[in-house]
């Protein structure tokens, strides 16, 4: 069999590109992190501040993924299944969080909920802190990750023929049973995809949180901001430790979601 030269070139080029763009930096950061020795790296990771910021990031990411699963699926459902005025406009608005620079997102939120604003002031007088506190982190993350699940579920819902649901109805299923046993399993893979992307994004979000969270160590400092702080104060080793952990977690989430997806799609052969 003769190998098409053009084919071979294209294949090698794309492999080379992926290698340079993605794999090489990952290798670089990993080898750099291990340079100072395993013990040193471990000490950096388990330093109280690093560990706290990492735990905060992880919990926040879990919370927003859980919320997104509901709001994202519901939004996609409403956009596909219902007709209402200004639907097209609303559909276009969904992508806005992707388009707005995250720093701007942070500033928007501070302007609305900051202590100097009407809404923020009102809440603060009642003892509810949003900006420069943990709720601000959640709010910022919800904003920047909102489109993920909506946009992964929407096309699946659009393509879904109504006949499976109709079959369930004629077989005596209530609307709720139909949703739970017929619609949800069909949507599950796309919900998982969106959830995984939201989670990864939440682990790494920097711009909006840097503005919104106040970044108080051991209180509102998330992992990415901690890493940035370490770099700023010339502690490269400290930054590398947590970076490697984040990297590992992103990988783990991606793999886990892939396995879950394959499982929920097993009936497709």
């Amino acid at each position: 069999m003769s190998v098409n030269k053009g084919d071979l070139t294209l294949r090698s080029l794309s492999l080379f590109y992926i290698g340079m763009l993605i794999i090489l930096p990952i290798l670089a950061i990993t080898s750099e992190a291990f340079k100072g020795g395993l013990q040193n790296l471990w000490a950096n990771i388990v330093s109280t501040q690093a560990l706290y910021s990492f735990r905060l990031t992880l919990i926040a990411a879990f919370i927003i993924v859980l919320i997104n699963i509901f709001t994202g699926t519901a939004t996609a459902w409403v956009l596909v299944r219902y007709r209402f005025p200004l639907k097209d406009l609303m559909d276009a608005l969904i992508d806005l969080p992707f388009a707005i620079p995250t720093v701007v997102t942070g500033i928007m939120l501070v302007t609305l909920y900051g202590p100097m604003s009407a809404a923020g002031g009102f809440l603060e007088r009642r003892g509810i802190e949003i900006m420069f506190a943990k709720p601000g982190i959640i709010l910022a993350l919800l904003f920047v990750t909102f489109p993920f699940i909506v946009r992964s579920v929407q096309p699946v819902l659009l393509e879904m023929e109504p006949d499976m649901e109709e079959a369930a109805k004629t077989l005596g299923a209530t609307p709720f049973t139909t949703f739970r046993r017929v619609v949800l399993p069909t949507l599950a893979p796309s919900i998982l995809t969106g959830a995984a992307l939201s989670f990864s994004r939440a682990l790494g979000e920097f711009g909006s949180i840097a503005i919104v969270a106040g970044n108080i160590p051991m209180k509102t400092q998330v992992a990415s901001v901690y890493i940035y702080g370490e770099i700023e104060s010339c502690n490269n080793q400290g930054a590398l430790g947590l970076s490697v952990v984040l990297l590992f977690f992103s990988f783990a989430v991606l793999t886990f979601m892939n396995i879950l997806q394959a499982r929920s799609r097993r009936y497709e052969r």
Partner: protein
Amino acid sequence: MGIVVRDIYKRFGGFIAVDGVSFDVREGELVALLGPSGSGKSTILRIIAGLEIPDRGEIYLKRENVTALSPRQRKVGFVFQHYALFKHMTVEKNIAFGLEVQKRKRKDIEEKVRELIRLVKLEGYEGHYPSQLSGGQRQRVALARTLATEPSVLLLDEPFGALDAKVRDNLAKWLKELHVKLNITSVFVTHDQNEAIEISDKIVVINRGKVEQIGTAKDVYEHPNSKFVASFIGNVNVVDAVIKNGLIFIKDTDFEIIDRDIDVSVDRDIVLLVRPEDILVEKDSKQEGFPCMIQDVHYRGSFYEFNLCMGDTYIRSVKDKDDFLGKKWEKNQKAFVVFKQYKIFDASEGHWEIREKLRQLGYIE
């Protein structure tokens, strides 16, 4: 009565899908709703099931007015053209769905599922997913799933439409046997007149949202009561003709039809219906043949099909293989056709009343 459909109307936007349809289905009967695509037959079926709400009219199932009930409350069985199986569930789970929804005892469900799997001959496939089955097997799972809840009526929407010819044939015969065995009141939608003729007790012919004719297969095939039914069932040639000054002509030609039984005193339009097998194609005009042009000759296995044109009228004729081989027929060749027998629709005699004028020519064949 198993099912009574009373004067139902349904429009989608500006399109009138169902326009005043009424018919009855007796207990235990297997009825075909036959019509071309877009005629509204599926919509009628969906209205019976409660999947579509009619703008007007009523549906009775076993004497009960169910017009206001949801599909869930009507307890009808519905089989979809594209199976509509739950693709994330195994064959067993699909069949059990309706029973699980009714919260039957697990032991009863297991037993019923086993029984149905035997009925639809899918032993050994219990754990398969729909994607691992052939089209025919999928449709049998769909049927088993529907029968599991013991519906009072069975509605099938083009149940064999997505299957290839051979599987369709087998499954249609099997459905007929099953119907005889279970004796469940059934309505199925089809656009295939052969399917309707073969397995139904009664045919309801639908066209443009209206009932054209109701009758047994034999009634509808042999005594169509409209031009549409005649042309839709059995591939009949429709030839327009005019009566003018006491003579009958094929429309837009000067070919004269000699038929002493037609009243020619009033000028008007009539229509001749001629089956392809009743058209004789000849090389020379021995008798009163109409000149025509051969457009195409197609090989069809056991016979040959001729596409002919007489003036502006296109007609189709068939010729036996043996008869064909004796002569040389070619495209664009001139020939003559004789209508051995035909039927006449005469608008002047009321609403497209059919007069069965079978005219036998003195041909020795």
